[in-house]
Every structure is written in structure tokens, then in C-alpha cells.
């Protein structure tokens, strides 16, 4: 890939997705965009990128952006956050909500494993949860909605008993069981958009391993959007090692619960002394 093509790709990812594509990922870019070029009928990655440069940003550019996003995801990633949600948070929040309904947003849900895992945890705890999964990548969302996963995917993060309880075999794959299907809906959403997804505020937001790939000022904007989407005292789960930023007054870390941050109540108007 020529340096100018890579710079164009960097700019596309930064302005549209807030994604900071570092120079050491140039090889990865060639590897990921090769299949997109073939699928879209271009002779090479260079030709594909030239087309995205010459045309207004449309579905082709989005295909390029989607291919570059980190799609790696698995069920109950890191386990502990999902245990906290299912055993502690969801039952506690449920007792203080009308109809016991807990509202959860899986932001950057990829192929849906996180959202379905949250549904399993809530259903296992007997909690009525309404879960929204959003992602930038249309192809991933289609997979999430289908709720169909390979044998490899279901074995990354799921116990055998959970597999039997929450999935049914479908041809060579496994499909999310009907009792979970009504709990989750999937929608396309760009975390960079000004307006949060419709439907009001959420009790719990999972946004794991998304922010660390973002450029710092965009990351800050996304955090503000996540804050605005949470109820007061709402819970934000980030990936292990991720944080809302040193000294960010909007969230406080919870000791003994890595990756969990609680939205702090702040006066809406700050007046200088």
C-alpha cells in the first residue's frame, strides 16, 4: 500500500469512526482490505482506496471502514463483568425500576456475543432486561440479529451448560434460543454521532474494548455521549485496562470490580467561585 493510500485510509477512519489507525497496522490494512477489493470488483486495494477517495463517502467507504474495525469478540469476555451484571447489578436495579425492567446498552456490540451474554445473565437471574446492541458495522449487526454462531464461537466463553440452556443446534451451527430473542434488539449506531440512540437512558452500558482504539479527543466525545445516555448512578463497563480518563469527574471507578465505572451525580451548571 502506498503511503498516500494509507494516509487516506487513516483519515477516513478518523473522521468517520474516530478510530486511530496507527502506522504499524499498514500490513493489517492490506490483509483486511484485500477481500473487500475482491468482493467489490476492484483489481487491487489501491484501486479500492482510489475509488473511496474519488467518490463521496457512501457504502463503499463504509465497507472499507467496517473491514478495518476490530471485530474480535466472544461470549462473556473476561467473565467477571458479566457475573457482576447478572448476580449483583441487574437484580438490584430491577427492584427499583417500574415493572422490574432493566435497560442495557451494548455499545460496539460487534457480532452480538456481548448483548446475548447479557441477555443470558439477566434471564438466568430472573430479571426482565431490555437490551440494545449497536455497532457501526452492518455486516456484524446482521450476524448479531441472526443469533447464529459457529461451534468455535460458542465455545469461546460459554460453559457447556450455558450452551445447552440458551442455544439450539441449527445445521452445523448454534442459534440463540427463542426465550432470549425477545430481550435484545440490534440497531446501527455510530458512537461518533451527536445524538445518542433513541429510547431514553440506560441503567447499564457495556462499551468494552472500543475506546482504546479511538483517537483521544474523539474518545472524550464518545465518553460524554455515553455519560448522557446513562441514568444517574448508571453503570459503565469498559474493557480491562481501559478507563474514562485520569481525573474524569463524570465517572468513578468501583474498587474490586475492574472495568466498572459509576456515573457520578454532578451539578449541571458549574459556577466559578
Amino acid at each position, binding site marked *: 500500500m502506498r503511503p498516500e493510500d494509507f494516509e487516506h485510509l487513516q483519515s477516513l477512519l478518523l473522521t468517520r469512526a474516530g478510530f486511530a489507525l496507527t502506522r504499524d497496522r499498514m500490513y493489517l490494512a492490506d490483509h483486511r482490505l484485500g477481500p473487500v477489493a475482491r468482493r467489490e470488483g476492484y483489481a487491487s486495494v489501491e484501486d479500492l482506496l482510489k475509488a473511496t477517495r474519488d467518490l463521496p463517502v457512501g457504502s463503499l467507504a463504509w465497507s472499507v471502514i467496517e473491514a478495518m474495525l476490530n471485530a474480535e469478540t466472544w461470549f462473556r469476555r473476561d467473565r467477571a463483568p458479566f457475573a457482576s451484571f447478572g448476580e449483583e447489578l441487574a437484580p438490584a436495579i430491577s427492584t427499583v425500576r417500574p415493572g422490574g425492567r432493566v435497560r442495557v446498552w451494548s455499545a460496539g456490540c460487534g457480532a452480538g456475543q456481548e448483548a446475548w451474554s447479557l441477555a443470558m445473565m439477566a434471564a438466568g437471574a430472573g430479571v426482565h432486561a431490555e437490551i440494545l446492541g449497536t455497532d457501526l458495522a452492518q455486516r456484524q449487526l446482521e450476524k448479531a440479529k441472526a443469533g447464529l454462531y459457529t*461451534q468455535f464461537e460458542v*465455545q469461546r466463553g460459554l*460453559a*457447556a451448560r450455558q450452551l*445447552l440452556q440458551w442455544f439450539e443446534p441449527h445445521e452445523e451451527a448454534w442459534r440463540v434460543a427463542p426465550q432470549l430473542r425477545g430481550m435484545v434488539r440490534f440497531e446501527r449506531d455510530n458512537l461518533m454521532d451527536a445524538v445518542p440512540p433513541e429510547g431514553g437512558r440506560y441503567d447499564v452500558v457495556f462499551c468494552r474494548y472500543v475506546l482504546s482504539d479511538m483517537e483521544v479527543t474523539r474518545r472524550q466525545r464518545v465518553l460524554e455521549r455515553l455519560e448522557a445516555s446513562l441514568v444517574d448512578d448508571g453503570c459503565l463497563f469498559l474493557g480491562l485496562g481501559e478507563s474514562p480518563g485520569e481525573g474524569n469527574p463524570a465517572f468513578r471507578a468501583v474498587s474490586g470490580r475492574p472495568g466498572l465505572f459509576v456515573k457520578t451525580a454532578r451539578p449541571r451548571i458549574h459556577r466559578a467561585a
Partner: protein
Amino acid sequence: MGGVTPRVSQSLNPVPDPRTCLIVDDSRIIRKVARRIVEGFGFEVDEAADGAEALAWCATALPDVILLDWNMPVMDGLTFLKRLRAQPGGDGPKILFCTIETEVARIAEALAAGADEYVMKPFDGEILESKFAEAGVV
């Protein structure tokens, strides 16, 4: 204490013995692949080619974990599992089935017979790590 300096025995060594895993599979290749992954988790690995051989191993020393194929000559994995679980101390080892069988009824049968986890072949390092974690051994 008397004037005789006691000899420091091995048991006073603060480094614990590595945990042990017995890999039971009639395929030498599968055993080799699984061994490399499981050794990577810090286990000391032994191998057996069928259930009868595995029972003989367990009569000498019970491993912490057993990775168990289903279909094997001489004695299959399910028979081995039931026999081991019926023995005194046989409920100690964590047993993970690792088999080509993917039917729901088979998985349920294995869990009901006392298996702790169930791996469907083919597997990779991430899957084994995830399943060992489920069984609480990594």
C-alpha cells in the same frame, strides 16, 4: 530443638508441584496438540490412549484435570468417567470431555455422568483455555 540439624525435606520447598493433566485420546496427534496447549497453561501432562489405560494411570495417582475423548478402543470415555467417579476419591479430578460428538443429547449425557465441561472438536488454544477456566482450573 536438639543439636542435630534436620535435613530440609523436599516438602519444605515453597515451590508447589505443578498441577497435572491426563490427556486421554486414541489419536497420538490429538494428544500431541492438546499436550502442547495444556503445558502452556502450566500443567504437567501425562497421556493415555484409551479409558482402561487412563484408569491404570488414575490408580497410581489422580491427576487434577482429565481431558477425555469419547470414542476409543478398549474402553470409551463415558465408561471411564462413570468408573472413575464411582471410585473413592474419583470425584476429585476435573473432567473435560473433548470429542467429535456435538449432539445436545450426548453433551447432556456427559454432564449428567459427572463431566465438568465439554469441548467439541476441533478445538484451539482459546477454546481450551476458556473451558479450563469454566472448570475453574486456570
